[in-house]
């Protein structure tokens, strides 16, 4: 057995050693741990690890296979997202022990802190003592065994799984209910306790989900689709969309769910123009070869950066909201255009990993489909805090789209209306987030960029936190961003516009003298002109979601949530998905991205610049008083006509110019 002494080396170095011992199959003892965080994080070998003392946050977090024993106590987030293996703690555990575990045995001989087993999916979390407030909060599966008393609101918002309590049940959470034990069930639990030497004598009570809240009580009636262009009417009262909304509410008695983002007119990049007259610029088919668009993201702390052939990424969209075919087409297009894809919520599926040259994997509050293995496979790791379409709220995936396969990937019961948690179990403030970022760094050996996705809400504070908490880059998403499903009111009225978001974000970074943390802007970016304007304002790049989907056949009918997408994009029904031609749409998306590249290059070239990053605020004017107020750019409405002519000129040539057509091999 090898020994690692934390009195002489730091945790990062120790974890590197642990991984090496893991490869060699040698068991390890950690001495002088002194409650330090991240001990054993990212260990994916079936070795035994003995911690001779207390461990801090995320002990044995993001692991697959080790057998860990801790002689003392542990801090928050014990065995975070552990897939296989076991952890035994002799003392007490802090809050959210066993958070998001997906199959391990996690045994705490003492007491459990608050919210034990939050969003756990499978495996067993057990304590010999008592559990505090909200044990089993939002659990999706597995079993939680509490030999002592359970605190208030046990099983709050649980969806699946079973909780056993040996002592007193202080109070039950919403939609949790006491149930009869099946024959043999008690023996199973007792055998588990016997196996780990947890003494217990008494009668087990069983708590399961009461099933009252797994689906919306009334489904929305099918209505005639009102497409985006009709929804975005000039009046924002009593138009077709408002009337439809009222009709539906009259039927179901609650807010309604739809896809896409805000449809009302908002100040946007259209309201800016280039000072220079781009209308007189001669189109140049070879312009792309004459400017520098390539960039990279993520090297702020020594990770391997993500290389991009142009400052554009595919925005995060989940397999779930989108069909697998659509995810594969996006991945292929990202490879053809040599940029970077993103998994969105729900995990990185093998087909996407295979098709995308580069892909970022997202971690959301529900930890659906999230694992250390996905982190290792990805080229970057991203913490989703919120998104522009619905800042502060979690995703919704209606039962029609929660298939057996998607449920299995996400570790949830099939056929529920999945309402993802709106916050992370282990991030209740900037102080927790900094430790979470460290955990990700430890799990990936500081090799993968770690980014954060922020919906534009309280941008000024949030982006400062992102800088201080040590992210590599920020994806900032404005109100014009879309989503697969959210309440209509939220989509229209919650959040702030993309233009206001980027200004607030850049101002805030300047306020604290923050440099070197790039901002990727998203939310209504539709072409190379928008991209050029965003970069001129100070963004490092953009991400495109909706426009890529439209390039791949979306008709913007706003019915994404229903699950019967007629073009096979926002559906999991094989009848509809069968209509989607993956290779053809991959090429369409690729062509769109190349048109974007050509436009962007043309704008850069027309200014006489060599690099896209020579664009600056000085090149821009505002066409409306609102946009001038938001951006502090000079208000010059006379530029409007020229700007239109310029956009027309740049759009006329280049799209599809000389593009090869052929097999997509990824």
């Amino acid at each position: 057995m090898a020994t690692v002494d934390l009195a002489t080396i730091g945790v990062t170095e120790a974890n590197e050693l642990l991984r090496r011992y893991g490869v060699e199959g040698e068991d390890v003892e950690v001495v002088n741990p002194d409650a330090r965080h991240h001990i054993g994080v990212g260990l994916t070998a079936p070795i035994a690890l003995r911690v001779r003392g207390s461990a801090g946050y995320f002990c044995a977090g993001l692991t697959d296979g080790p057998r860990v024993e801790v002689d003392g106590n542990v801090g928050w987030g014990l065995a975070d997202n552990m897939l296989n293996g076991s952890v035994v703690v002799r003392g007490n555990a802090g809050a959210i022990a066993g958070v998001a575990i997906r199959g391990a045995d996690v045994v705490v001989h003492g007491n459990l802190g608050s919210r034990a087993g939050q969003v756990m999916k499978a495996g067993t979390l057990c304590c010999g003592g008592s559990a505090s407030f909200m044990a089993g909060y939002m659990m999706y599966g597995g079993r939680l065994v509490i030999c002592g008393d359970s605190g208030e609101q046990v099983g709050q918002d649980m969806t699946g799984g079973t909780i056993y309590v040996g002592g007193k049940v202080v109070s039950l959470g919403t939609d949790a209910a006491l149930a009869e034990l099946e024959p043999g069930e008690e023996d199973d639990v007792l055998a588990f306790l016997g196996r780990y030497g947890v003494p217990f004598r008494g009668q087990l009570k069983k708590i399961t989900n009461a099933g009252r809240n797994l689906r919306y009580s009334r489904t929305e009636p099918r209505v005639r689709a009102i497409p985006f262009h009709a929804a975005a009417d000039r009046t924002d009262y009593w138009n077709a969309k408002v009337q439809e909304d009222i009709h539906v509410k009259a039927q179901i008695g609650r807010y309604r769910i739809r896809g896409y983002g805000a449809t009302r007119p908002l100040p946007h990049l259209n309201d800016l123009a280039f000072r220079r007259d781009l209308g007189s610029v001669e189109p140049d088919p070879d312009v792309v070869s004459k400017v520098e668009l390539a960039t990279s993201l993520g090297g702020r702390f020594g990770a391997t950066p993500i290389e991009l052939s142009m400052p554009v990424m595919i925005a995060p969209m989940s397999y779930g909201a989108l069909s697998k075919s659509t995810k594969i087409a996006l991945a292929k297009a990202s490879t053809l255009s040599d940029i970077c894809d993103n998994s969105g919520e729900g995990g990185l599926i093998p087909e996407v990993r295979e098709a995308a040259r580069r892909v970022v994997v997202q971690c959301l509050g529900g930890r659906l489909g999230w694992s250390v293995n996905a982190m290792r496979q990805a080229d970057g790791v991203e913490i989703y805090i919120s998104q522009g379409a619905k800042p502060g709220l979690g995703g919704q995936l209606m039962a029609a789209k929660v298939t057996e396969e998607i449920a299995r990937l996400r570790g949830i019961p099939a056929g529920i209306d999945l309402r993802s948690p709106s916050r992370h179990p282990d991030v209740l403030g900037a102080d927790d987030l900094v430790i979470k970022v460290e955990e990700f760094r430890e799990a990936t050996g500081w090799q993968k960029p770690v980014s954060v996705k922020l919906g534009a809400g309280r941008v000024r504070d949030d982006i400062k936190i992102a800088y201080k908490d040590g992210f590599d880059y920020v994806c900032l998403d404005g109100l014009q961003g879309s989503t697969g499903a959210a309440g209509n009111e939220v989509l229209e009225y919650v959040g702030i516009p993309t233009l206001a978001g980027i200004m607030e974000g850049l101002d805030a970074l300047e306020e604290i003298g923050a440099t070197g943390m790039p901002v990727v802007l998203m939310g209504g970016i539709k072409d190379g002109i928008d991209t050029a304007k965003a970069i001129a304002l100070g963004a490092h790049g953009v991400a495109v979601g909706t426009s890529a989907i439209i390039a791949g056949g979306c008709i913007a009918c706003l019915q994404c949530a229903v699950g019967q997408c007629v073009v096979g994009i926002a559906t999991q029904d094989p009848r509809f998905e069968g209509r989607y031609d993956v290779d053809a749409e991959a090429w369409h998306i690729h062509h769109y991205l190349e048109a974007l590249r050509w436009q962007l290059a043309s704008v850069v070239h027309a200014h006489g610049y060599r690099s896209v990053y020579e664009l600056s605020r000085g090149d821009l004017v505002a066409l409306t008083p609102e946009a001038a107020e938001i951006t502090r750019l000079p208000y010059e409405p006379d530029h409007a006509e020229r700007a239109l002519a310029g956009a027309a000129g740049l759009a006329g040539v280049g799209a599809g110019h000389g593009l090869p057509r052929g097999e997509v091999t990824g």
Partner: protein
Amino acid sequence: MCGIAGILYKQDEDAPLGDALVAMLDGCQHRGPDSTGFALYHERNGDELRLRFFVGEGEEAGETVARIERKLADFEAGIVERERIGTTQRFTVRYTGDLQELSYALEHAAKLISIGHSLDIVKDVGGAHDVDRAYHVGAFHGTHGIGHVRLATESDVTPDRSHPFWATGFADVAIVHNGQITNYWKMRRRLEKRGFEFHTDNDSELIAVYLADKLAQGVPLADALRDSIDDLDGTFSFLVSTQEEIGYAKDRLAAKPMVMYEDDDLVAIASEEVSLNRLFPGRSLTTVEPPPGTYRTWRRST
């Protein structure tokens, strides 16, 4: 957005308080790299009051000090000792008049950090070791104290926005807080109507004044903490210290961490166990995480 720590030595009047708090705060500095602060208590010396002010640097500092001295003279507070250190000026004075009146008057003359018969607050931008180097916190011996590391979000990174917060107008009450009080303005207006003054927009100052007001009315600290859990909305884990006691209160949602260790000699409380372990390197401690919605106080056993 921060980390907190506190320690009370049950018998020792001359314990290595400064060293202990520097180590504990260094242990959780990752929770707040922007600024660090200490509220340190020593045995009371008769009517002697310790006052500490932010005075800045250079010429401006000279003018501020002169202004403070005039104000002290107005109140017939005799200066016993003075020391300029870092960006602060400390006075020890003899004063027996109305304390709230004096402190409000001084507040209007300069940025007052703390007043106390036992209390001294040291806080500045930077880490625990930075502040220790500038103010020699480690050399401070005493009875009990609390400390704080801050990650600034809403308000700027300046020394006066750092913790701990002194309960403006009340001697010897200090607080460190991790979390966010969401009914801040409502509570503040209520206290302002009763004549209390606030000198920052930081929600932690509110907790300090709220508790000090109760203490001044003769409410025991434990009862004041119990009431605070009902009266304050939001997320909080906070530590409060007075001349004789320290205590904690924790919100009902258990959103902010806190862990404590107690033996015959001392009680130590911190956001994370890693801070407690700094006091006892190499030892596995028996610690307790206070349940949500709880409070407790400890008094020196003299």
